[in-house]
């Protein structure tokens, strides 16, 4: 198979790109989260502060201004009872002191502290200068300072609201940023799904189909560089496999055709050989055999006309008769070995019986035949195949088995004719039984297969060998 080499496109690997993208997104979200937390903490502090006392100093300074005015009104009033007015002034002064104390508690800034210190000093001076002209000046200064402080506290309220607004904006911006980051991550995930996950899933499905044996599928070349490369290489492999498969099929078809031709050639060869043997056997029988018969008849004719007083001639004629008889035996043996006439005249069962007897007579191996077939109408091709396999089996028994008995059965099994030759010899070794180098066994198998039959040989050490041939019981064509 050709090794495929695909060019690599230079570029940042997709996995690294994705990693960087996710890293940036996560860092951004983390930063936004920290900033948002800080902004929210700050906002929370402001809101809490506003909830407790929106502008604490303003209320205290307003109460001071009111009590101070009431103090001055009381002071300027013409009392019915002098003592009562003094008591009221003392009480009001107490209220003013309480107001100052309340304001003092709200001070957080230095300039506010300075103003307050000034106010306390002015109040103390005013209280000391009670009724004097200088007190009027202190009173005016207190009024002026109160205006300043009230304005300062108003502005402080405005500043607090602005701070809250800024903190709210910062928190909102953070939330919006987080939303944007989340959306970006969603988009990234979607992009990842479309560009990486789907092509990878499709590739995985294709690979799974291939693993299940479906070699006709092809992967979609899509997605990131690595996935597309793998898909392309997988497709190349599948294409190469398909080409190899086609080549293998072509070769197999050619091989099968060649085998078929060889089988046909073998069949033709066997048929031609059988026909040739039949022709030669007939020729021998018809010419040599009949001529010898005629010769012997001639000799007999001469002998009848010859008087017994010519012993030399009579002896010569007797020698001729012996010679003719010996020659007839030889000629018959040759003709029968080529093609036994009993096979053509009487059929397979008679031929098998004759061959078994002849084998027993020739080898001394006891041969028992059990034939229960009516083979009169059996196709000569079948008869010949079975008979030749039988002859070869007996040859093997005589040559290799060291058997003393052979049992032969010829019977119908279903619609088939079955011949079995079983000996009690040393038994064929399984390796020899399945060996392709045994020409004899290969020929027997081939003969059986050529007539659509089957052949088997089996054996066990010391338990003999069994040859079994099974052929369809085809009837001969009517002539």
């Amino acid at each position: 198979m050709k090794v495929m080499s695909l060019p690599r496109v230079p570029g940042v690997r997709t996995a690294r790109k994705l990693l960087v993208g996710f890293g940036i997104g996560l860092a951004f979200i983390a930063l936004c989260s920290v900033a948002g937390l800080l902004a929210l903490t700050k906002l929370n502090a402001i809101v809490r502060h506003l909830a407790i006392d929106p502008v604490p100093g303003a209320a205290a300074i307003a109460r001071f201004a009111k009590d101070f005015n009431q103090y001055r009104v009381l002071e300027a009033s013409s009392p019915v009872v002098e003592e009562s007015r003094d008591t009221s002034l003392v009480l009001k002064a107490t209220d003013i002191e309480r107001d100052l104390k309340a304001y003092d508690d709200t001070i957080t800034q230095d300039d506010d502290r300075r103003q307050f210190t000034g106010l306390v000093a002015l109040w103390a001076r005013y209280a000391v200068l009670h009724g004097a002209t200088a007190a009027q000046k202190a009173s005016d200064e207190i009024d002026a300072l109160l205006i300043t402080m009230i304005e300062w506290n108003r502005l402080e309220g405005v500043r607090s609201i602005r701070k809250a607004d800024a903190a709210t904006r910062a928190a909102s911006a953070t939330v919006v940023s987080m939303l944007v980051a989340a959306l970006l991550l969603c988009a990234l995930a979607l992009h990842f799904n479309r560009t990486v996950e789907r092509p990878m899933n499709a590739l995985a499905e294709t690979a799974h189909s291939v693993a299940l044996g479906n070699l006709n599928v092809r992967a979609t070349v899509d997605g990131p560089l690595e996935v597309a490369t793998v898909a392309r290489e997988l497709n190349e492999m599948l294409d190469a496999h398909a080409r190899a498969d086609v080549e293998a099929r072509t070769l197999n078809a050619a091989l099968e055709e060649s085998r078929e031709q060889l089988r046909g050639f073998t069949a033709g060869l066997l048929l031609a050989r059988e026909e040739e043997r039949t022709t030669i056997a007939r020729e021998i029988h018809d010419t040599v055999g009949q001529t010898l018969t005629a010769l012997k008849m001639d000799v007999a004719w001469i002998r009848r006309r010859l008087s017994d007083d010519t012993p030399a001639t009579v002896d010569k004629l007797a020698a001729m008769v012996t010679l003719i008889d010996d020659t007839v035996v030889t000629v018959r043996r040759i003709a029968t070995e080529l093609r036994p006439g009993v096979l053509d005249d009487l059929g397979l069962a008679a031929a098998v019986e004759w061959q078994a007897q002849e084998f027993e007579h020739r080898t001394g191996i006891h041969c028992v035949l059990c034939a229960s077939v009516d083979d009169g109408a059996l196709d000569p091709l079948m008869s010949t195949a079975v008979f030749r396999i039988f002859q070869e089996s007996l040859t093997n028994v005589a040559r290799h088995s060291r058997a003393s008995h052979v049992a032969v059965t010829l019977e119908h099994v279903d619609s088939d004719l079955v011949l079995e030759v079983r000996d009690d010899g040393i038994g064929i070794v399984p390796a020899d039984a399945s060996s392709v180098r045994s020409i004899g066994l290969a020929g027997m198998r081939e003969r059986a297969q050529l007539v659509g039959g089957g052949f088997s040989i089996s054996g066990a050490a010391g338990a003999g060998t069994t040859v079994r041939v099974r052929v369809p019981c085809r009837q001969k064509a009517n002539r």
Partner: protein
Amino acid sequence: MKVLLVDDSASVRHHLIELLSTLPGVEIFEAAQASEARHAIRSRRPDVVVLDIHMPRGSGIEVLEALRADDPRPTTIMLTNDPTPQSRAACFRIGADFFFDKTAEFQQAVDVIARLAQAAPQPDL
């Protein structure tokens, strides 16, 4: 007595005719193949049929089988150069009266025919 000789070998037929022609009261005719023999049997009604087994286009056994249904049936003498025990048994099973080896026992066939001719009623002259 009419004797039909059935053998594909003209030489063998010739020699047998020579041997049989010396017998008194024997009328011989011949056939070279199975179909010819069947025709001759139907048309001339021989008393004795001498049958070879191996012949081109049909064997003597087929002729023997065709004779089974004939009544009266001629005496059949199988005379073959392939005298296997199987052929002998098959021929006797089918209905042959005698079975001889053509080369070794032809004289016995001639002797059987001679005896049959002696026993046969002589035609009125």
